[in-house]
C-alpha cells in the first residue's frame, strides 16, 4: 500500500492574524510532509498553532487570518494558489477534516441519518434513497449499534463518542486522500477514546487515506502515529519517526515534553522543582520562540532563527545547539 509518493507538502507557510494590537504571526515558516498512507502526528500544547496548521491546509482560516507566504502542495497542486471554487472541490474528497469540539461538526437541526446521507449525495451523486441506505451502512461501519434506529436521532441525543463516530462516518463517505483529525479524542472518556483511535486506524485500511493526527497527548502519538511533527508557538521544532524521536529527542522542547510526560504503568518522580515556568508564549518574529523557556538557550537563539537540519534521514530539528 505504501508507495512513497508525497501526498502533502507544506513548505515555509506563514500565517498572521490581524489583531487590534497589530499583525500576529501565528505560524512561522511551518513545513511538514505527509507520505501516502502514513499517519503523522502533529504535537503541540495550547497556543502552538497545531489546529491552525490544519485549518490552513484546508483553507478554512477565519477572515482575520492572512496566509502571508508559503506553498501547500497537495497531489502536486499548490492549494494556496487555488480559487475558492477549486478549493471546494478538493475539500471532502481530497482533504477532509474532523474538527475539535465534537458537537460543532454536526448540524443540530438535522437527523444524523440525513446528515450522513447528504454527504453521499453531494460527494458521490447518489439518489436520496441510495444515499440514505449507504448512510446507514457507514453508520454500521463505525460501530453505531442499531443504525437504522439511531439514524433518526438528532445530534443532541448522542453521546460525545457517538457524535465523533458519526463524523468519522461522514468522512468515510467522502473517501478523502488525506484526513486531518484535530484532537479527535479530547473530552472523551478513555475507553471511548480507544474505540475512536481504532476507528481512525481503520480509516487508513479501509480507504487508504493518510492521516494528520493533531494532538497534545504523546501517548496517542506513540501508539497511533508513524511520524511526528513537534510544533511550538507556530514554529516547527523537530520532526522524525516516532521511534527515533522518543528514543532520542534532539530539541530541548521535545526533551522537556518527554520529560514531563506521566505514565500509567509506572510512577514518575515528582521531585521537580515546582517553580514558575514561564507560560507566556511569545509570538515575536526573528529567532527561536522557545528561547524564553529553553534551559540551554544561546545568545543567538533570541534573534536568529535556527536552520533546519536533518541529522538522520527522516529526523530533522531546528536548533542552534544541534550543529
Amino acid at each position: 500500500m505504501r508507495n512513497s509518493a508525497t501526498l502533502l507538502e507544506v513548505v515555509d507557510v506563514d500565517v498572521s492574524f490581524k489583531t487590534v494590537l497589530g499583525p500576529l504571526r501565528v505560524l512561522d515558516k511551518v513545513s511538514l510532509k505527509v507520505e501516502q498512507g502514513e499517519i503523522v502526528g502533529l504535537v503541540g500544547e495550547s497556543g502552538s498553532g497545531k489546529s491552525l496548521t490544519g485549518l490552513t491546509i484546508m483553507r478554512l482560516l477565519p477572515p482575520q487570518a492572512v496566509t502571508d507566504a508559503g506553498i501547500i502542495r497537495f497531489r502536486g497542486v499548490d492549494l494556496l494558489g487555488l480559487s475558492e471554487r477549486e478549493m471546494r472541490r478538493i475539500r471532502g474528497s481530497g482533504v477532509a477534516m474532523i474538527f475539535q469540539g465534537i458537537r460543532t461538526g454536526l448540524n443540530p437541526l438535522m437527523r444524523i441519518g440525513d446528515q450522513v446521507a447528504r454527504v453521499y449525495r453531494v460527494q458521490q451523486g447518489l439518489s436520496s434513497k441510495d444515499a440514505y441506505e449507504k448512510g446507514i451502512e457507514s453508520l454500521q461501519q463505525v460501530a453505531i449499534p442499531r443504525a437504522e434506529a439511531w439514524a433518526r436521532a438528532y445530534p443532541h441525543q448522542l453521546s460525545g463518542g457517538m457524535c465523533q463516530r458519526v463524523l468519522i462516518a461522514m468522512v468515510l463517505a467522502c473517501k478523502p486522500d488525506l484526513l486531518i483529525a484535530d484532537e479527535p479524542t479530547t473530552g472523551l472518556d478513555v475507553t471511548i477514546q480507544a474505540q475512536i483511535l481504532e476507528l481512525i486506524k481503520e480509516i487508513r485500511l479501509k480507504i487508504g487515506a493518510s492521516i494528520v493526527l493533531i494532538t497534545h497527548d504523546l501517548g496517542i502519538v506513540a501508539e497511533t502515529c508513524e511520524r511526528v511533527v513537534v510544533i511550538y508557538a507556530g514554529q516547527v521544532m523537530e520532526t522524525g519517526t516516532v521511534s527515533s524521536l522518543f528514543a532520542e529527542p534532539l530539541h530541548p522542547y521535545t526533551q522537556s515534553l518527554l520529560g514531563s510526560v506521566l505514565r500509567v504503568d509506572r510512577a514518575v518522580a515528582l521531585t521537580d522543582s515546582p517553580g514558575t515556568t514561564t507560560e507566556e508564549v511569545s509570538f515575536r518574529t526573528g529567532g527561536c520562540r522557545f528561547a524564553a523557556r529553553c534551559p540551554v538557550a544561546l545568545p543567538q537563539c533570541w534573534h536568529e532563527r535556527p536552520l533546519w537540519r536533518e541529522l538522520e534521514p527522516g529526523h530533522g530539528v531546528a536548533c542552534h545547539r544541534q550543529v
Partner: protein
Amino acid sequence: MEPLLRIEKLTKVFRQGRHVLRAVDDLSFEINPGETVGLVGESSCGKTTTARCIMGLDKPTSGRIWFDGLDLTALSRRDMRRQRRWLQMVFQDPDASLNPRFTVRRIVTDPLRLVTMEGRGDHERRLQATMERVGIPPAFLSRYPHQLSGGQKQRVGIARAIIINPKFVALDEPTSSLDMSIRIHVLSLLKQLQEELGITYLLISHDLSSVRSLSERVLVMYLGRLVEAGPVEAVFDRPYHPYTRALMSAIPVPEPGLNRKRIVLPGEPPDPFNVPPGCAFCERCAEAAAYCHTEPVQLREVQPGHLVACHLGSE
C-alpha cells in the same frame, strides 16, 4: 491509626420527574491521615458527586461521612461552615472557580474568615508565606483572573485551598485543563505541599497517569459504584475487575513499539438512569455470566488491601 475520613454507605440520588439517577450508590471507603487516595472513573461515574458530598456542597440521600470522628452529615449549616476550616477543595475549571471580579489577593484571602483567632498581621504573613509556597510572585496579588495563565490560575486555586492549613483537600481534576508541561509542575507542587503541611488528599481524576504518580491508593468507580480499590501499583498493574482491565489497556502509553494488546470495550456505558440491578458493568463485560445481570455484587478482598466488586472468581 484512625482514618481521617470515613465514608459509610454514601448514596446520592437525583430525581428528574419519574427518572431516578443513582449518582453514587452505597459507597464506602476510608482515607488515612497524610495519605493521597485517588478516585478514578470515567464520566458520570460519581466521583465528582462524592467529592461534593464530602465538602458539604451536596446533601447525601443516605449514608454517613465521618471526618476526624465527627459526622458531617449530621451537622447544621453553621457547624458545617465551621468545619470548612479543616476541609478544602481545589476545583476543576480554573476559569470558573475564581471570581472574575476579585483580585488574586481577595480570592486567596477569602478563606481566612474561617481562622478566627488571628489578627490582620498574622493574615498578611500567612498570605505571603502561601504565595511563596505555590510560586506566585507578589506582584500578581493585584491582578485579576483573566490576566493569568491557566497554570497560574490553578496555583491561585491551590493557594486559596491551603492558606488556612487544612487537614484535608479534595482535588477535583486539578490538572485536566492544563498543558502537559505545566501539569507535572502543578503535581510536584501538590506533592511538596503535602510533605510540608501534612495534608491528606483525595485526588479525583480521569487522568490515571497523574493518579499513578501522586497517589498511594486508588478507588475505581463505575456508574456510582466502587468496583475496585487497593494500592495503586496493584490496581493498575494487576487489575482484577474487567472494567479496570479495559480501562488500563485503553490508556495510551507514551512508549512506541510496545504493541500492547488492547481490550476495546463494546458499546457505550448504559444510561445512568437505567442501571441494571446486578453488576453495573455486565452489559459491556466480555466475561459476564448470566447471574451477573441479576445478582448484586459485594466487595471482597482478593489480596491484602485489594478489594474487587465482581462475581467472577468468587465461587
